[in-house]
């Protein structure tokens, strides 16, 4: 956990959440909202943005207050901070976009139980300066948002033939209803993970190949 001697670059901290340490595809965190509210692209984005706000806000606060939080009660304090942000999001969504709030329903308060958020506080925000913590949170939350959007749009396109409610294929398309039902969530995420693994493996193989070729040249 010691900070390595190499200088930490805020930009790198942000980018790692997008692909290399993507919270969903690599760390497999936050599965519950990931599957439950991705039956349409718009719900997925709303949930992604709510999580974004909570994660970035909590990381900022935890990182700025870390000097005053006693180590023994840190988890409780983190949870109180996260729950405060979640309650705020819950009321703001209810007041501004009641229709989306109704769709997301009980899964907004459940953002509290998203292990991604508590995990980032414990593993990162409580150890690093505010700037790095916020960049890390933005990266992770964006990675989560992108994964939510990927899953939500695939499920909506196949399950309803629409994206953001706009029909894509005309009347002849027979929607794969199963995709917007729970099994579709499991299977789509499974297949996306598979794709992610496959791309990762191909990349590894490619790097190895290049290294081999260079050794051959030398």
């Amino acid at each position, binding site marked *: 956990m010691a900070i390595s001697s190499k200088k930490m670059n805020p930009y790198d901290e942000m980018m790692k959440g997008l692909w290399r340490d993507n919270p969903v595809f690599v760390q*497999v965190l936050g*599965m*519950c909202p*990931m*599957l*439950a509210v991705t039956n349409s692209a718009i719900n997925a984005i709303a949930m992604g943005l709510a999580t974004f706000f909570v994660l970035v806000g909590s990381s900022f606060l935890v990182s700025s207050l870390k000097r005053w939080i006693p180590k023994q009660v840190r988890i*409780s304090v983190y*949870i*109180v901070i996260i*729950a*405060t942000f*979640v*309650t705020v999001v*819950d*009321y703001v969504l209810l007041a501004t976009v009641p229709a989306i709030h109704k769709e997301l*329903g*009980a899964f907004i*308060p*459940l953002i*509290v*139980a*998203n*292990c991604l958020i*508590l995990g980032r506080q414990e593993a990162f925000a409580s150890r690093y300066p505010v700037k790095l913590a916020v960049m890390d949170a933005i990266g992770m939350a964006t990675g989560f948002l992108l994964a939510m959007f990927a899953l939500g749009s695939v499920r909506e396109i196949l399950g309803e033939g629409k994206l953001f409610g706009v029909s894509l294929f005309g009347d002849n398309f027979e929607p794969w209803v*199963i995709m917007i*039902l*729970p*099994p*579709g*969530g*499991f*299977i789509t*995420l*499974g*297949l996306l*993970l*598979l794709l992610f*693994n*496959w791309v990762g*493996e191909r990349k590894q193989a490619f790097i190895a190949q290049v290294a081999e070729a260079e050794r051959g040249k030398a």
Partner: protein
Amino acid sequence: MDNLIWIFISALLVNNFVLAYFLGLCPFLGVSSKLETSFRLGLATTFVLIITALCSWFLNTYVLTHAPYLRLISFIVVIASTVQFIEMAIKKLSPALFQSLGIFLPLITTNCAILGLAIFATNRGYGLWEGLTFALGAGAGFTLAMVLMAGMREEAEIGSVPALVRGTAFNLIISGILSMAFMGFAGLFSST
């Protein structure tokens, strides 16, 4: 009585917490590699769910009637501390029980099925008995899903699954198939 049976069957099969509501996925995907462990984790979770139903009913009825905005925070704090207290009590009273179930308790408190139960029960306006039935059904449903999943994973261990697919991707796809099977329970109660 009809209502209680519907709540139980709905939480157990038709709207299974794991397979239809995606609650409690972390242990479902993470801890379900052994049948024996899965079953014990399921029992311990059911126990915590029942405690949760009691706590949330108490809070909703006596504490939060005038302060609904503090619901989330008080649920988390009260459920976590009650479970911790019971954990200490079990450790003192019955070390054997603690060995078999108690070790899971801290893990379960952070499980979203717990908070999910409290929130669903509140949103639906369940009373004490309805809440307890709901908790029992949800716990039994969670245990059932865990045990089925563990059984399949134990079988898959000895099968020839390609290395690329092994792991979470594979578990998610078999969960999808399991979830599809559970969809067959829909209409179980209303078709009569």
